[in-house]
């Protein structure tokens, strides 16, 4: 399903992924943005407010906020309030370890949605990725949110470690009154180093696709359209939304097609010194991304379900854009033969 209005070009993104800091109190081995220590050039409070102003002026509906760990920023809650003043919804992705009762109180707002990351249903599996003690602390944060009846989703990245615990994660989410979202592991940031040993096998990906069909209430953040069965078609996107529906702003203000393509060659502009509207409408990076066609997939029977899959994964694994998603469910001969032709 392609959408004629999206293909013709929207005036602005629907949502913007905004990584507000590189700083994090954890050091997850799969971190997409290699977060941890402070880096020079992170946007100041005033600069962040200008980013919010820019998105408000362009009528962006929503921020998907992450980092690093957003709550490590001392000004984060004030920035969140400012976004709300402008009518922008904030979906906050957090490790949950810093959430206490006071913070939970500030998060109790109709424009706030919280996503707490867990990589397994137990401390053994979760802490292997997120660090010792992180499971216990995240659960404490979830309890504070539950006490205030705040709508929460638990997010798990699909890895070899989380795959055997999917049922347990679904049960854990249910026990906490939370939704479960399973998102796709991508080899960006520290994920590049952990990709080989953490990424699921083809067999596991197929099994996961079947599992998703049996768990229609589990969401995927539009990251698994490459493996979606027909029965989940109506639940979300069937194509990459980068530069069409979304884009990413880094902690230092650079604008990229998506959070998983924060590489120099994909930098489209810099906020707040540049105006956002011309970046969105006219940057050559965004224009070429919009014209990206995964030609080798067009003859596939699954093309209408996935349109070639995730370009970021293809880029990081096959070193080129415009190639089929290597996680493709069909795992068709065409994709294999194209990939094997790359040296």
């Amino acid at each position, binding site marked *: *399903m392609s*959408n*004629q*209005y*999206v293909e*013709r070009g929207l005036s602005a993104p*629907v*949502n913007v*992924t905004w*990584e507000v800091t590189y700083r994090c109190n954890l050091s997850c081995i799969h971190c*997409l943005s290699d977060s941890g220590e402070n880096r020079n050039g992170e946007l100041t409070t005033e600069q962040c407010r200008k980013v919010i102003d820019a998105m408000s002026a362009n009528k962006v509906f929503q921020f*998907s906020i*992450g980092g690093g760990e957003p709550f490590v920023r001392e000004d984060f809650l004030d920035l969140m309030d400012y976004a709300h003043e402008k009518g922008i919804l904030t*979906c906050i*992705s957090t490790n949950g370890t810093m959430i206490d009762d006071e913070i939970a109180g500030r998060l109790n707002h109709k424009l706030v949605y919280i996503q707490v*990351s867990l990589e397994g249903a137990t401390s053994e599996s979760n802490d292997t990725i997120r660090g010792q003690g992180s499971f216990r602390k995240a659960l404490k944060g979830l309890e504070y949110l539950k006490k205030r009846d705040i709508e929460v989703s638990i*997010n798990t*990245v699909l890895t070899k470690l989380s795959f055997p615990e999917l049922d347990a994660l679904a049960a854990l989410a249910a026990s906490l009154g939370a939704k479960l*979202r399973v*998102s796709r592991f991508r080899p960006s940031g520290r994920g590049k180093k952990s990709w080989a040993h953490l990424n699921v096998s083809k067999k596991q990906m197929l099994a996961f696709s079947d599992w998703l069909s049996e768990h229609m209430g589990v*969401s*995927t*953040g*539009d*990251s698994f359209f490459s493996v979606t069965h027909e029965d989940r078609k*109506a*639940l*979300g*996107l069937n194509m*990459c*939304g*980068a530069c069409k*529906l*979304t884009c990413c702003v880094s902690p230092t203000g650079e604008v990229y097609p*998506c*959070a998983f393509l924060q590489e120099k060659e994909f930098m489209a502009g810099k906020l707040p010194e540049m105006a956002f509207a011309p970046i969105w409408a006219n940057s050559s990076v965004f224009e070429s991304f919009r014209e990206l066609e995964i030609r080798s997939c067009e003859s596939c029977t699954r093309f209408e379900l996935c349109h070639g899959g*995730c370009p970021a994964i293809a880029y990081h694994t096959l070193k080129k854009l415009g190639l089929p998603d290597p996680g493709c469910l069909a795992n068709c001969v065409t994709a294999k033969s194209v990939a094997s032709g790359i040296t």
Partner: protein
Amino acid sequence: MDREMDTMELECQEEPSIVEEITMDEMAVDGICGIY
């Protein structure tokens, strides 16, 4: 894609014209591939 009725033409026109048929396309999204 859900449709109420047939799609209307959307070609850019020099003079705005009144819409001919009232339709509305819908697209389910879920995060639009934000972040984990």
